[in-house]
């Protein structure tokens, strides 16, 4: 302890104090302040970059989810559209078929009606012809037969019978 106190040099202490103060001031001004500031700025920059990268990742994920959703929606829409189209097609075909059927039926009906009327006309004409023929025959028969009374009666009877058969 005595030796320590003896070795203690107040002059060296003083010089050291001065040098240390000057050194601290100079180092703060020319080294520590700019260095620490630069480090701080750099670390903040890195932190910011990391944060924004994280944010971008999140946004990307959101965007992907959006895309997925849109795709799904589009797919669903397409599906419904296809379904509608298919239904429409079926309906149109059915409609067309029905219409054609109706048309055909109508045509057939018309044809039948025409045939019926033609038939009627033909039958009427035939009747008329037959009637006139009968009349003519009758006239001729009457003319030839009426000379004989019995024959006349016989004829009338036969003709009546014929007429009933008709």
């Amino acid at each position, binding site marked *: 302890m005595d030796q*320590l106190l003896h*070795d*203690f*040099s*107040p*002059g*060296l*202490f*003083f*010089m*050291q*104090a001065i*040098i*240390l103060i*000057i*050194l*601290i001031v*100079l*180092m*703060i001004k*020319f*080294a*520590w*302040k*700019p*260095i*620490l*500031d*630069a*480090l701080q700025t*750099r670390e903040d*920059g890195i932190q910011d970059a990391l944060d924004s990268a994280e944010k971008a990742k999140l946004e990307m994920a959101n965007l992907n989810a959006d895309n997925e959703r849109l795709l799904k929606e589009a797919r669903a829409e397409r599906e419904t559209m296809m379904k509608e189209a298919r239904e429409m097609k079926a309906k149109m075909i059915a409609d067309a078929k029905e219409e054609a059927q109706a048309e055909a039926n109508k045509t057939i009906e018309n044809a039948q009606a025409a045939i019926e009327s033609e038939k009627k006309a033909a039958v009427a004409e035939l009747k008329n012809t037959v009637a006139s023929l009968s009349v003519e025959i009758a006239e001729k028969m009457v003319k030839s037969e009426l000379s004989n009374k019995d024959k006349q009666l016989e004829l009338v009877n036969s003709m009546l019978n014929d007429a009933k058969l008709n």
Partner: protein
Amino acid sequence: MVAKKSINFITVLVFALFSISTYADDGEQKPGNKIDTAEEIKEYIAHHLKDSHDFHFYTHNESGKHYSFPLPVIVWTSNGLKTFMSSEFHHDDSGKVVVDQGDTKLVKLHSKIYELEPGETTVSFDADHHATNAHAVLDFSITKSVVGMLLAGLLMLLAFGALARGYKKGKTIPTGFSRVLEPLVIYVRDEIAKPNIGEKKYRKFMGFLLTVFFFIWILNLLGLTPLGFNVTGQIAVTACLAIFTVIIYLFSGTKDFWGHTLWMPGVPYLLRPILAVIELIGFVVIKPFSLLVRLFANITAGHFVVMSLIALMITLKESFGPVASTGMSLVLALFIMVIEILVAFLQAFIFTMLSSLFIGMAVEEHDDHH
């Protein structure tokens, strides 16, 4: 490239400032005066551990020539300030050479400068080899330690100034030697200052902590070079560093800190003044004392051990022969040297760590009211 240039610059600067002078002693030391006895080795080591007024490289054995350069001596005597070069003492350290500065006579004795009482011409000694007719003067000399400090300061300014300039030039990642320094700065900030002082308040103490850390580390490492600096082994230097820490933490102490120190809550009232005294002694005396003694003792012990192991070469020559003693000395000295490189960092780290711990205690905000 820049680093290389600046190293060249320093070399030129050093040689320009101190021209090496070689001169023979005036027969004070007889030629062929080898240091080869245990007694002489002990004295040599003790001499090395002390501060010195010139920069001594080695002494040529045959001619007794000293290769060294002198440093300025600046002393405050009873007759005012005296300045001269240390070469005027002619390497005398035993008080024999008297430097006459007009009205004041000065001698150098065991690395200290003494002023002779008026009228005396030579120093007389008592039985314990203490000067009886001279008193020590206030010595502001540019001693070897001061040169070491200036060198360390210059190195720091150049190295960290370059790092700072690199950032200013817009480089976000430093290149070259600065790349080595940056992690060290970050280490001090993140591992020493932030955990001990706290995220919010560490910033304003960084200047002191970083300066002290690198200052001590560089000086410790300089002490391991053959230049023979022993700056951090000077008790005045470590005391000054410790007192800076004390001043800083006492002046930045919060109200909470003083409240807890002087009037400890949660303790019986009778005990509080006693605790206050204990706490005050702790903060003002014991903590700085532990700081200054730890650094001083570690570095002094390191130098002592390394030099003693090197001296084994001589002291064991008698019993083991030259080859074995040299080999043993080399291996042991190398081993301790490697440890000393670790200690150089460790002591800088511990000093800074404890300083920031004490500062942290002083600026801490106590949330818990106990």
